[in-house]
């Protein structure tokens, strides 16, 4: 086989592995973003966290929020939920960043898999 073609095919296999790993990292990130509070399930994303901040800026201490399952949830203490969401957000983004960085450094399948 032509050497250039051989290299291209090896690179193609490597890309499949990288894509598989990326999917797994994103899935783990999504799992880590979920916060359970007052019988509701919330995602620690920018919209939810900003909305809670706005409610608190408007001096609300409790509110009804629509959770990820589209259920109305009576949040008794917005401050507690905010803290949980921020913790989940920082934990998830830190791990996500470190995994993405280490994947970017991997130059072959073995390194990407920590073989």
């Amino acid at each position, binding site marked *: 086989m032509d050497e250039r073609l051989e290299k291209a095919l090896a690179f193609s296999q490597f890309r499949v592995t990288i894509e598989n790993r990326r999917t*797994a990292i994103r899935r783990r990130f999504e*799992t880590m973003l*979920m916060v*359970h509070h007052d019988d509701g399930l919330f995602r620690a994303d920018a919209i939810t966290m900003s909305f809670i901040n706005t409610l608190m800026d408007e001096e609300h201490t409790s509110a009804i929020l629509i959770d*990820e399952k589209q259920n109305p949830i009576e949040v008794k203490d917005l401050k507690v939920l905010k803290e949980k969401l921020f913790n989940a957000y920082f934990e998830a983004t830190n791990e996500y960043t470190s995994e993405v960085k280490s994947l970017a450094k991997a130059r072959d399948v073995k390194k*990407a*898999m*920590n073989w």
Partner: protein
Amino acid sequence: MAETRGVALFAYNTDQIDYAKLALLAARYVKRHMKNNNICLVTDQGTWDYLVDSRSAERSDVAFDDVVISPVVHTANKRIHYDSPWTKFVSEFKNSNKHQIINYTPYDKTLLIDIDYIVQNNSLDYLFDTDSEVALFHNSEDLAGFPPAITETWLKPTGIPMLWSTVVYFDKHNDISRMFFDMWAHVHDNYDFYKFLYGFSGNMYRTDFAVSIAAHLMNGMGDGELVTDIYGKLINMSQRDDITKVNAIDDWVYLLNDRMENWKDSVTRIKGENVHVMNKRALERFYNYISHELDIEDGIAEE
């Protein structure tokens, strides 16, 4: 009295698969990751004795808080298992009393998991704090993030959606939970009739199909969320996939078989996710290594 919470597993050994050994592994992962980690094993005397003899009483004590001995005479239910696309074997599948878990469980709130469901995070703990009567996964994907085959999405191409019985959460004191398990028992007892009514084929009794039918019947023969959808998706490792390396207790490397062109494989690495490891032989191959790592962590063995 305080509400009791815990996880339950069924294990009945067959001539081909040591289910109890895999239950031991699954239980130790639950202990490691979940907050609600009382564990009950439902088994028969022979399987339990073999487990204690072969895997030590110490390990069994670490893993299981409660043991329910249920000497059920299972109806013949042969299943073809794969270990990669190239090896297959037939084994008895003893699942005829799974719907009885509501009677067996010592806990008020129970999470029933299959012995090949490896818990590597605490995302299921939230269920115990909800008002859900019964919850199951409605959606799944494979290790690469692709949706399941149509045969694992619907009972038949124009049929009802398939729910997964791999993970079942329920509150045993709730009337709706009780009704759901009664309905599951009814579907089990009349499986041939429901097979004809819902138009699917195959000779094996599948609990996934039984819970799907029970949920459909209880939802007034329609769609609905009477049976709550567990948040996220059930991640399935196919029986045609394999485990190639265990980097650490919660960091596994898998070989993914291409569904369309099964001579092709790719690899992926999954860290800290709950995975339904359907290739039981693959799990058995890595049992000793993982068990040893867990032993070190639990102070049963030295490094």
